[in-house]
């Protein structure tokens, strides 16, 4: 198992390096005079050249990238070209917002999807139809449209939650809860729709397995078979889907943070990509990819723990 984790981490690190290289190369393609942009049209050429030199932009792209990489592996992500903020600090300040969203959505999705999915598979009937319709609706409606409807209903019409703004957990836990509830709800609709359908399908598949019949034949009650045997065997496919949903979730967070005015990684992405602030964009891309790699690793570890056959691989 440790061997497996080590191999996966190495593969993840390699992926990060490859993506960082490609991103840096692509981001350097547009021939933008950053010094000119920063200092304005009226600045004289010498000052612009000096600014470009101080940012290291007068060097070849490969040299710039190597320099960036050498610093990045030591945890130094550079400074923003436009705000002179330390990129690491800027990202760290915004990470808790997005992280609390992701954690909230993951918990809500896991709990609700398993409940709905197992219920739909075992009992069929109305819950089953609900899960199927939710699956279609969740797939069909763009996430931000769902978010807008949620804002309209719960914030504008019912006025239960603030429509905009963020309170840090450390400042006021209750305030934090009231500001993240609607964003988490918005993001959860699509992921619950997707994951609950997968859980339903996986449970139906497992219920048809021969060993479930044999367990019944040995006098075990249906509830126990479902909770112990079916759930465990159905969890692996459901978890893989949960991991895949996470990639989409990161994209959804961009829109949701923008709509709710949350100072997270997503809204940061919108602001900084508009300006072409390469050090910040690089950090954001790296963070996103690292997040995806980490989640997939966690999912694989959990699948290995659930399924003894996968442990060997």
């Amino acid at each position, binding site marked *: 198992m440790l061997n497996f984790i080590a191999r996966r981490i190495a593969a993840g690190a390699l*992926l990060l390096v490859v*993506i960082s290289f490609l991103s840096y190369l*692509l*981001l350097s393609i*547009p021939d933008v005079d950053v010094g000119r942009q920063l200092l304005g049209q009226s600045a004289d050429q010498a000052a612009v050249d000096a600014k470009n030199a101080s940012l290291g932009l007068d060097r070849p792209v490969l040299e710039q990238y190597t320099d960036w990489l050498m610093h990045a592996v030591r945890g130094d992500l550079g400074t923003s070209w436009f705000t002179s903020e330390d990129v690491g600090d800027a990202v760290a300040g915004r990470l808790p917002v997005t992280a609390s969203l992701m954690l909230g959505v993951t918990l809500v999705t896991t709990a609700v999807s398993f409940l709905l999915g197992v219920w739909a598979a075992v009992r*069929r009937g109305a819950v089953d139809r609900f899960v199927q319709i939710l699956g*279609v609706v969740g*797939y*069909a*409606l*763009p*996430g*931000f*449209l769902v978010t*807008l*409807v949620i*804002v*309209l209903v719960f914030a*504008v019409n019912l006025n239960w939650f603030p429509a905009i703004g963020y309170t840090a957990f450390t400042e006021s836990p209750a305030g934090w809860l009231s500001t993240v509830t609607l964003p988490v709800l918005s993001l959860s609709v699509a992921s619950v729709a997707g994951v609950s359908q997968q859980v339903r399908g996986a449970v139906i598949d497992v219920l*048809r*397995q*021969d*060993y479930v*019949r*044999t*367990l*019944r*034949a*040995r*006098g*075990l*009650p249906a509830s126990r078979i479902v909770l*112990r*045997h079916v759930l*465990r*065997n159905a969890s692996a496919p459901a978890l893989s889907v949960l991991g895949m949903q996470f*990639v989409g979730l*990161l*994209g*959804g967070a*961009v*829109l949701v943070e923008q709509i709710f005015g949350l100072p997270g990684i997503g809204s940061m*992405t*919108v602001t900084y*990509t*508009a300006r*072409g*602030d*390469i050090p910040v*964009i690089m950090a*954001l*891309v790296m963070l*996103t*990819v690292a997040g*995806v790699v980490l989640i*997939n690793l966690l999912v694989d570890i959990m699948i290995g723990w*659930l*399924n*003894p*056959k996968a442990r060997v691989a």
Partner: protein
Amino acid sequence: MSENLPADTPTAARALVPAAFGTSTARRGGVVRRLLRNPLGALSAAVLLLIVVAVVLAPLLAPQDPGASSLRDAFAGPSGAHPMGMDSAGRDILSRILHGGRNTLGGALIALGIALALGVPSGLYAGYYGGRFDSAATWAVNLVMSLPAMVVLLASRAILGPNVWVLMIVLGVLAAPSFFRLVRGIVAGVRKELYVDAAKVSGLSDTRIVARHILIVVRGPVIIQVALVAGIAIGLQAGLEFLGVGSGSAPTWGAMLNEAFQNIQRAPLPMLWPGLALGLTNGALVLLAGALRDGLEDRTGHAAKPHRARDRAAAVPSAAADSPAGQRAGLLSVRGLTVAYAQPDGSDKEVVHGVDIDVRAGEIVGLVGESGSGKTQTAFSVLGILPEGGRVSGGSITIKGQEVVGLPERAHRALRGGTVAYVPQEPMSNLDPSFTIGSQLMEPMRHALGISRKEAARRAVDLLRLVEIPDPERVVGLYPHEISGGMAQRVLIAGAMSGDPELLIADEPTTALDVRVQAEILELLRRLQKDRGLGVLLVTHNLGVVADLCDRVAVMNSGRIVETGTTEQVLHAPQDPYTRTLLDAVLDEAPARAPWEPREARSTTA
């Protein structure tokens, strides 16, 4: 504004949707007919067609220029001239919706085209030829799929500028993996099929094979995927526009939503129209995809409704009760048993039509017949473990005098754990892969007998010893995939013995095993039966096993018992013509079942 559109977009828009149907009409008339007969499919196709036509004809249909504004009328409600009202700048919303659709749908179309152009050919190639291209492409695809599309699109804006049309090309690249994976998977599967081999052998070129045999298989799933990816592309396009990444003044549904959202406190209605346009388009696409899938798979879409009354069928006294078999046996007695399965259309299909069978204590009764004759259904009925949709629809089953037809699940379950036990056919698939052998033996014992963990562990080892498994202390800690099929069958027999049963239902207990192991397992069953005085109902199609083991035999054909008697009577002097055919079949084959040999082995000796 239509000037912003690349010249070919309207034609492309017209080409796409009919293309999805066009090919279907040409070669798969059945699918289209099924699609149109499915109300949801027909409705969503109609809605989609309407939206596309309206958007393509926007310049003709729109009441006014989408950019024309009269600030006096800002936020004006719906009226005759402006059926959807006016937006914050006093522009006609309907005109903007119609023109905006060209940008939104056109952008999605570009993404879709790029995704198809990249994904399908590469998927075909990788799936058909495999090899290095396949590995490289799969690696690249996994890489792209681990990137969140929205983040990449925003990062691309830094490179390519805030032009949504260009970003849609990027989206096309990001969406290509979904086609690649789909096509590659299908082609790699089909490639191993015999008919492709046959085509190869008969000298067809690869191009012809791909064109004639493989494209046909891929086409349906790809069309479905097109509908789904189109929905995603429209959503992302609108999302980007909503974020303000768009190209400024041109109307798009996403930008309209953004503008309406800014003014949500003043007038919520303008949000409804672009929201509705997006929701309807995407909803129609997803429903259409679903209907297409149903059409291609030719299923009704709804699983059979479960019968609530499944376990409740009343014990119907049947005429068979006092018929030939006479006195009912003490251990197991089945009279007039009928089993029915619920059909999708709500009717029942009867698969067992009035079976009578008896098993006395200490007796082995063979239930013989070919597959599909209803023998396994009969066995499952006794155990009360018929699959979903199946139920005992009539007749009577008594176990030690207790009627089990209509018996509440709880009481039937108590019988299963103790008095009646079951040995299944396929040993490997009947053990839960996620739990150790020991845990699977212990759990039902602890449940049925209420014994401690330690006691259950001790008994588990004893049981494994009983079925002659060497080194039982080690085996309890193994997982099913770590033991052989023969050993797995012994474990299942051990499990059956754990509740100290009086009646054993064995469903083809040796069919899945190789010949040597078959003999050992039969020997084990015989010994256990003798030592414990078990009554056994042995379901089998193997007359050799019957001759070897059984005291009496019942022969089943098409859901009915056609002949019963002692093994000697039935095997030596069969009365029923069907029994005679069964026996003849064995004689022709003699030995009853040829030992299985791998094909390669045979061809080397030849």
